């Protein structure tokens, strides 16, 4: 298994919600060694298995909060989820399931880019389009090494 797993999440038919899929297109072109990329519309329990097999997992997603074009990186820790629904898995619950079933929850981060338009459509807003290169650059940095500004024990914003 590769060292790093990238999980891109979002709906490419809802404009900026699909920005992680666009980032994945750029990441595929880089052909990074030791990196596996999965793009999905939503997080599902099946991710627990590949997540448990890597050293680091990066969840890429569009964010509604913040200024459009703003890039954030947050540490994720496993959180045991409960409830009747399986349609709303979070990165934290995927980590928890990985630990529960496979005994390992790797280091994990959510790297997000704030979107501007979440309407029906396959186009990315100009603001997000302009921010995508920086988003991809940050993801690549996280696949190579942990940036010095990253505090393992608290959320951070770059």
């Amino acid at each position, binding site marked *: 298994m590769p060292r790093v797993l990238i999980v891109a999440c979002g709906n490419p038919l809802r404009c900026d919600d699909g920005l992680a899929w666009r980032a994945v297109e750029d990441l595929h072109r880089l052909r990074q060694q030791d990196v596996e990329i999965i793009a*999905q*519309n939503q997080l599902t*329990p*099946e991710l*627990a*298995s590949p997540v448990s097999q890597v050293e680091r997992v990066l969840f890429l997603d569009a964010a509604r909060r913040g200024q459009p074009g703003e890039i954030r990186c947050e540490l994720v820790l496993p959180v*045991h*989820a*409960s*409830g*009747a*629904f*399986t349609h709303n898995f979070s990165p934290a619950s995927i980590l*928890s*399931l990985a630990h*529960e*079933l*496979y005994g390992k929850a790797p280091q994990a981060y959510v790297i997000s880019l704030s979107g501007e338009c979440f309407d029906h459509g396959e186009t990315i807003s100009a603001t997000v389009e302009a921010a995508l290169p920086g988003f991809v650059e940050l993801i690549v940095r996280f696949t190579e090494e942990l940036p010095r500004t990253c505090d393992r024990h608290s959320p951070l914003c770059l």
Partner: protein
Amino acid sequence: MAEKRTIVIDPVTRIEGHAKITLHLDEQGEVSDARFHVTQFRGFEKLCEGRPFTEMPSLMARICGICPVSHLIASAKACDALLAVRIPPTADKLRRIFNIAQIVQSHALSVFHLSSPDLLLGMDADPAKSNLWGVAEKDPQLARDGIRLRQFGQQIIERLGGKRIHPAWVVPGGVSEPLSQENRDAILATIPEALAIAVRTLAWYKKISQAFREEIGSFGNFPSLFMGMVKEDGGLTFYDGKLRMGDASGNLVADGLDATRYFDYLGEKVERWSYLKSAYYKPKGYPDGMYRVGPLARLNVVDRCGTERADQELAEFKELQRAAVLSSFHYHQARLIEILYCVERLEQLLNDPEILSKHVRAEAKANALEGIGASEAPRGTLFHHYKIDEQGLVRWANLIIATGQNNLAMNRSVLQVAKHFVRGNELLPGMLNRVEAVIRAYDPCLSCSTHAIGEMALRIQLLDPSGQVLNEAVRP
């Protein structure tokens, strides 16, 4: 004197889609009536009008994130009929592999993720624990098996179609790309593990199901018709064949039915209280023509599965009840037997000497103005029916989805379970969970099944910002 009351279960959990159940209680607190309401509306029959028919498979795959392949297959078969072509033999086999892989992953979702909390933890378990985490805590191997089996099916779909959800690989006239040897070998290498999981889970299920005798006796345990597609030799098939209608005594009511003449023997009725149409067998009328489709129905009407291990399990299954297996609780066991069959059948198809052939698509323009495609989806028989104009634009579409065909039986099952378990004067969570669990046994896919427009009761209100009704239109 006590008043009549209504219990509403909203939403119904651990199913695909959105629904609610209402239980009507009489003055004594006993259940007098029950209804399963589908509260979402998709409308694909209408929104596809005006689109080029060649877009239909990809468009129809968007109906569902769980069973997009079923819609791809039925839609592509309808488009094959519009082209008036016979697709290459290898394309036929590759579509079968694709369809079977999806049956595995969809059935695994139903058994492991949605119903195993009830089966493993019990119907009276704490609702907060009655989920995947509860299963992982009590039996992590079962949870891992569910995840692995889903992956198995999804990875086959991804290897063939390029992606797990909404792949566009199945096209009118065949498939867009042949199977590579690398992908064939990679899939074959995963068969033994999938087979072991299927065998292990069936053994587990047969053991734990002994504890559910009361549920087996009351979960949709009533006479009905059963419909499924069969091969010429009466064997199980998910891709192509004639339709059979069997009754509760195990007799065939109709055999050799042409799926492209479905409108001669299947009718649909709209009820005011649900967006889901109710299909019925026309010769028996409505609602007496109630029939069930899906795993339970398929195994009731086939003579054999056609693979060694699945046939052994089928023989055991047919002994569960006298004549036809009537209890909808047994959908679970039928689903597991179908998973076993699919894994065995996948190995056969992948070892077919023609499977790597590069001839996988027949090219043609539209040669007919009407086309019908039918196949077996995880939840039952699926029909896509299109009419196009001379320019190849869709002018009319009709979709008959498995879940709609089970609608009458699901409603009757809810009533049966509610009458047996629910006591309105001392309501307990386990009582209501059983009402939901019988719906889960059918594994309805509601996102797939609500497409009719212009027939159902509608109430549209125009509200101002304060919530005051400015205008209202009602269609009874």
